[in-house]
């Protein structure tokens, strides 16, 4: 196989583009796709201070690397979820990436700062682990971005993630979630601007980008995610994509072009009902935000254990609306 651009030997084939690329031109393709997404959806402006939510996985580390290459001022935020060896590994990869490049990585530890980890907390709160995890991430990432006065919070959601979430929301006609499923959510009501610059890249592409850039990421999958609905939706879309490359892209971007506006009014209704959490001061749908309710149920009011690891940068955090997208 030859690179479509330079005719040198290719290292990867991208079926939905019906093209092969050498290392240099694949890396350029990935960065160009991110530029295209940022410009098309007006995600970021030159000089913006950006906080990237970093899991130690391929998407968030690729995103951090690409935004830096594009000239943005970018810090990372890692959230320790308390999921045993998996969290140890993911934290290691995030720290290694930051240290090797002299980057600033903020850290928040769920157990030491809020008194629970995802496995035990979700059990105690009688909530699915992925649900408790997503809620915690949204709340703590938003809070860090707001309190750090960042211009935007960037997450590593890729095309496969967004198409799978869209598929699930369409299957249930979740109008409120469909209204929020945009590549950019503007700042307001106490929330930071939230952007998803990887929406034009599939996860095979972000993984390949990391391999070619020498980024050592967490390959092991979260043990709590095994068998969840989101993976089922991805498998279904992968089966369609295998028969008809490009369908996933057409599904997601077709929604944005032709259907997303139909749901926009439902977002406005929810935003109008937002108040302030009596416990933490974050945006809330009721008297207390969903995250503070989760903390209460997960800890039985036990509170944090204050055993944070030495040497991490503590961040004081806040809350977020439950918009049903992957954390």
């Amino acid at each position, binding site marked *: *196989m030859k690179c479509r651009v330079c005719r040198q030997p*290719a*290292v990867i084939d991208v079926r939905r583009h019906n093209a092969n690329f050498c290392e240099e031109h694949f890396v350029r393709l990935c960065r160009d796709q991110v530029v295209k997404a940022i410009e098309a959806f007006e995600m970021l402006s030159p000089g913006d201070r950006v906080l990237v939510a970093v*899991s130690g996985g391929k998407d968030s580390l690729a995103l951090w690397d690409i935004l830096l290459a594009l000239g943005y001022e970018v810090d990372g935020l890692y959230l320790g979820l308390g999921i045993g060896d998996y969290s140890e590994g993911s934290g290691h990869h995030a720290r290694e990436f930051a240290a090797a490049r002299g980057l600033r990585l903020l850290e928040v530890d769920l157990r030491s700062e809020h008194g629970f980890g995802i496995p035990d907390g979700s059990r105690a709160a009688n909530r699915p682990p992925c649900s408790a995890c997503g809620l915690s991430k949204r709340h703590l990432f938003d809070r860090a971005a707001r309190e750090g006065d960042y211009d935007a919070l960037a997450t590593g959601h890729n095309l496969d993630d967004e198409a799978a979430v869209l598929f699930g929301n369409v299957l249930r006609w979740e109008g409120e979630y469909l209204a929020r499923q945009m590549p950019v959510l503007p700042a307001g009501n106490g929330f930071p601007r939230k952007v998803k610059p990887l929406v034009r890249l599939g996860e*095979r592409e972000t993984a390949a980008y990391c391999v070619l850039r020498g980024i050592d990421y967490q*390959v092991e999958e979260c043990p709590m995610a095994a068998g969840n609905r989101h*993976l089922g939706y991805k498998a279904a879309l992968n089966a369609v994509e295998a028969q008809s490359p490009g369908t996933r892209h057409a599904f997601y971007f077709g929604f944005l072009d032709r259907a997303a506006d139909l749901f926009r009014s439902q977002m406005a209704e929810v935003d109008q009902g937002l108040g302030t959490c009596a416990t933490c001061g974050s945006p809330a749908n009721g008297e207390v935000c969903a995250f503070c309710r989760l903390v209460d149920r997960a800890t039985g009011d036990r509170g944090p254990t204050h055993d944070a690891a030495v040497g991490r940068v503590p961040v004081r955090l806040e809350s977020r609306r439950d918009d049903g997208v992957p*954390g």
Partner: protein
Amino acid sequence: MRVELRNPSRMLEIAGPLSVVALLRRLDIDRETVLVISDGTLVPGDARLEADAEVEIRPVISGGAS
């Protein structure tokens, strides 16, 4: 060739040489869900994997969701 699979991590011995596409077909793996890495380098579908190659088949699908 020695083939490493992930999630969970395990090793297989497969007779070679084989193309990447043939190897994935033999293991019944969808090419779009993995990267194939041989001797530390990303290899495309038509690449020939020698009998003594060290190969990693790395899944790319991550599944965290709320």
